[in-house]
């Protein structure tokens, strides 16, 4: 019986099923990719035949780890340590290589042996590189060719395999070359350590830890992914999937409510012939759960397919290679079942609550069920038809609204970020330039050698250069504390307006932003501990930029010391002597120093890869919202024309051309989507405004900016949804034969 009821409205059931399937597919595909990312990273540089891996204690990932290259000698002196092999591990982003891993090791080291050469020969000197098998698939390159990294050509001498996808989509240089390419002068990312046979491993580890350097020691055999990192990835995957789930869930509920409504009479009959309330409830719930379980199974396959497809994207595919665990499939099915239950409970409860007498006298879709409400005579026919089924309209627009709202929120956050970044220190006057390392995937990875600072300072048109170091502190006590290192006398310091106290004068002093002072409850004279060093708060500043106010300023040298980046900075703020010289100076810097990128400060944000990836995510979510939202629209409109079949037949009999009916239904669909866009936009603005006002450290970072462009995108999305989702139903309606339609019950 359940199955027959579902096949009775085959198109609607399959659309509902598809909606659920997409939600589940998002859970499965994104979950698998997040799992894959986390576990792949865990294996990178972990598969070596060395015993221990040493990274900086606070680093989320070896790529963010920074260690002095002098530590090696101290490690070598630890009893039980036989070999100490420094390694550099970093990301490279160039036009051809969106995500290219670069490894650097000493020639002939055990660590280097991990990269098994299958073609050509290993790296034997400067200017040589061996690249991974997967990298050769995404960039067209062979042994003997040259590969340019940040402008420097390296000759490909060999190709390696390790059996690990991420490693195989990178390349290996000799240590010094890698340090130069990554601007890691006198620094390394990690040390691999080989232990003397026969010694107790744990004792040796304890001895290394007692060196009292900020080190994290892990056994290569047991290296796990960083918990925090993995959680972040999974949270992110769920966040995106949740959008699809919500939209799908509302679609589901909509469909089930509709199917109960149109069967009101039938349900009345069942109750009249003695079926119990529970039996009716059971049947409706059964239908909804059956539908969602089918959707779940279908979604799992769709998800696997999508994840596999993502894995083939050239260049980035290797990052997106999914790892499927039983837990992911269970999550997918669980999601589907929860959707089915939640979507079915209300309709089932409604069906069970129907009084037989009322149900039997129900005439769905005829004149008597459209009663005079306040708005029933208001507006166009499209509006009235939506008003007539307010609950359904509400459910559909809630679903679509969530999609649109998410886009609006992302748009607002991105615009807010851009605005804030453009107001970063140094952007005070129009003659300002901001300089960062070219082609880094994340701003916090930007790294510029102090030699460059000196050379830029020497340019005649340059009035001043303020170097700044940026570090992100993520500890339980200080979640998201942005650490700035800035020379107290530099012109960029003017950007930080003192609200209390004074500027930093000594390495042991720190100025903190007003937000940080508030959220961590710190005042002048209090102390703050960063990387095991205590700093005294001497000043509190305001800048109007949330994350600047959520962090603190140390003296430049001090911050370089604790962040472990001597003679190296993140950004430069360049003042030119005359604003009209800003452009020529920008070009001159970009030409002379291929490793950095100078932007006019007010345009800086648009040029960063951070913003590009935010926008990429927004586009992906937009696509998801488009597909799932389109299905919801189509489903809603199909229901709407089903129940109005007689009406449409009447219009045809009265001489309305098919075209006119088509346009009427399209109008209705567009109106539905525009309503959703409004609901979604308003919801998004309220939500973000509320979040930003919450007294949490992260909350203050969200300072959304509302730009007409964001809402224009929301409205265009709604129009596309309305057109795409409404077309099939409208076309069907226009093709209805009057006689058939008039006989329809």
């Amino acid at each position, binding site marked *: 019986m359940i199955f027959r009821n579902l096949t009775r409205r085959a198109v609607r059931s399959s659309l509902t099923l598809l909606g659920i399937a997409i939600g589940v597919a998002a859970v499965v595909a994104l979950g698998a990719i997040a799992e894959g990312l986390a576990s792949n990273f865990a294996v990178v540089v972990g598969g070596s035949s060395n015993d221990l891996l040493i990274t900086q204690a606070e680093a989320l990932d070896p790529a963010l780890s920074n260690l002095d290259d002098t530590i090696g000698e101290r490690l070598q002196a630890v009893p039980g340590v036989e070999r100490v092999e420094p390694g550099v591990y970093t990301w490279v982003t160039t036009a051809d290589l969106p995500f290219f891993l670069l490894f650097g090791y000493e020639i002939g080291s055990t660590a280097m042996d991990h990269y098994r050469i299958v073609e050509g020969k290993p790296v034997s000197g400067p200017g040589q590189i061996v690249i991974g098998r997967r990298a050769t698939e995404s960039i067209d390159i062979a042994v003997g060719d040259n590969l340019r990294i940040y402008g420097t050509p390296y000759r490909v001498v060999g190709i390696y395999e390790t059996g690990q996808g991420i490693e195989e989509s990178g390349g290996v240089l000799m240590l010094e070359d890698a340090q130069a390419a990554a601007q890691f002068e006198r620094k390394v990312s990690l040390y691999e350590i080989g232990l003397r046979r026969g010694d107790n491993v744990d004792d040796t580890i304890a001895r290394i830890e007692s060196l009292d350097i900020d080190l994290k020691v892990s056994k290569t055999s047991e290296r796990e992914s960083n918990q925090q990192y993995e959680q972040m990835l999974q949270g992110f995957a769920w966040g995106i999937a949740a959008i699809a789930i919500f939209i799908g869930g509302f679609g589901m509920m909509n469909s089930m409510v509709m199917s109960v409504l149109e069967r009101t009479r039938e349900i009345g009959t069942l109750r009249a012939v003695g079926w119990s309330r529970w039996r009716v409830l059971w049947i409706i719930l059964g239908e909804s759960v059956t539908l969602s379980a089918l959707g779940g199974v279908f979604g799992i396959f769709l998800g696997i397919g999508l994840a596999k497809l993502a894995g083939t994207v050239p260049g980035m595919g290797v990052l997106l290679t999914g790892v499927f665990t039983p837990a992911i499939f269970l999550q997918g099915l669980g999601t589907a079942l929860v959707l089915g239950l939640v979507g079915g409970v209300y309709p089932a409860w409604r069906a069970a609550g129907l009084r037989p007498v009322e149900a039997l006298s129900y005439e769905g*879709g*005829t*004149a*008597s*069920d*459209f*009663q*005079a409400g306040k708005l*029933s*005579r208001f507006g166009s*026919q499209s509006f*009235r*038809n939506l*008003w*007539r089924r307010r609950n359904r309209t509400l459910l559909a627009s809630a679903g679509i609204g969530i999609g649109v709202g998410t886009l609006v929120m992302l748009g607002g956050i991105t615009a807010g970020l851009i605005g804030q970044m453009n107001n970063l220190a140094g952007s005070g006057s129009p003659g300002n330039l901001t300089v960062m390392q070219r082609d880094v995937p994340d701003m916090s990875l930007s790294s510029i050698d102090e030699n460059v600072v000196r050379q830029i300072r020497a340019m005649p048109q340059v009035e001043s250069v303020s170097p700044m170091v940026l570090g992100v502190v993520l500890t339980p006590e200080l979640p998201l504390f942005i650490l700035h290192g800035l020379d107290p006398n530099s012109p960029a310091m003017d950007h930080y307006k003192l609200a209390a106290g004074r500027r930093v004068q000594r390495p042991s002093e720190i100025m903190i932003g007003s937000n940080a002072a508030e959220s961590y409850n710190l005042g002048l004279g209090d102390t703050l501990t960063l990387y095991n060093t205590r700093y005294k708060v001497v000043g509190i500043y305001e800048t109007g930029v949330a994350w600047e106010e959520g962090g603190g300023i140390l003296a430049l040298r001090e911050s370089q010391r604790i962040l472990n980046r001597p003679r190296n900075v993140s950004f430069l703020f360049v003042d030119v002597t005359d604003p009209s010289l800003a452009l020529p100076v920008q070009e001159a810097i970009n030409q002379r120093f291929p490793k950095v990128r100078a932007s006019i400060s007010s345009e800086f944000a648009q040029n960063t890869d951070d913003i590009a990836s935010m926008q990429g995510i927004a586009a992906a979510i937009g696509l998801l919202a488009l597909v799932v939202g389109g299905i919801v629209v189509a489903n809603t409109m199909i229901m709407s024309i089903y129940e109005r079949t*007689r*009406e449409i*037949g*009447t*219009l*045809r*009999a*009265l*001489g*309305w*051309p*098919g075209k*006119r009916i088509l346009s009427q239904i399209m109008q209705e669909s567009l109106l539905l989507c525009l309503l959703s866009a409004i609901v979604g936009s308003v919801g998004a603005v309220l939500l973000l405004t509320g979040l930003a006002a919450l007294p949490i450290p992260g909350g203050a970072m969200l300072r959304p900016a509302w730009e007409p462009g964001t809402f224009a995108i929301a409205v265009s999305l709604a129009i596309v949804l309305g057109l795409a989702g409404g077309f099939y139903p409208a076309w069907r309606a226009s093709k209805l*034969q*009057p*006689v058939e339609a*008039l006989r329809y019950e």
Partner: protein
Amino acid sequence: MSNHQPIIRVEDLTKTYGSGETAVRALDELSVEVQTGEFVAVMGPSGCGKSTLLNMLGALDQPTEGKVWVAGEDLSKLKNVDQFRAKTVGFVFQLHNLLPTMTAQENIEVPLQGQIGSRKERRERAAHLLELVGLGDRSHHLPGQLSGGQRQRVAIARSLANSPALVLADEPSGALDSQSSEEIMALLAQLNESQGTSIVVVTHDRRVAQATQRVLRMQDGKIVSDHRITDPIEEDLRMFAQSQFGQSLLANNPSLEKFIQERDIATLRHLLQAYDDQAASPEDAGSS
């Protein structure tokens, strides 16, 4: 349009639904002619093809075989079916089929859209028609706020929107109580008289048929009788005598003949009431 030209001409009209074993011959080589200005009732048991015939006349469906001319136009050669449906014929359905989201006035404007350009003119025309059917004060009511008889009157006003030459009404009073039903028929008769509109009305109700000038009786997709009405009582009696019910009554009660000859009105009323009652349930009327 001259009065001598037939408004409807049907020649050997056949309509078959489905195919093979399950095929239903809803109309079987039916031919008929209706003159301009005539008011015709079509009667017959349920399923005999009345609605099918009306659908063909209104160009809502295509014949399997045969030809139909309405107002001089060959329906198989219509260039613009929509235009024909909007202007040449007006349709009144059994279940009024008003659009629930539109007020009475807006419902009447439906066939005017695409015909009359200005909104003001459409509104005036709709208001005029509402007056005509006696609902001038209900123009802003939704169908849900009107009684069954009022809804059907709105539907009639809607069918007249573009002053069609022919109104086709398929059991317009089928869903109404007897008083509303009489009112509706009186309205149709009045329209026929005052506007000269040709009307074809399908009905089960003998009293409804009485309001007309000509009764076509159908059976199994064919017209089995066609005659003009002169004296209403005479027509009643003729129909009674022809019916199965009447024949069995007459066979069992020869004395009835006497009452009929003597035109004993009181007795006849009783008889006809009984006849009406059994005819009101289509199953009985249609069974053989």
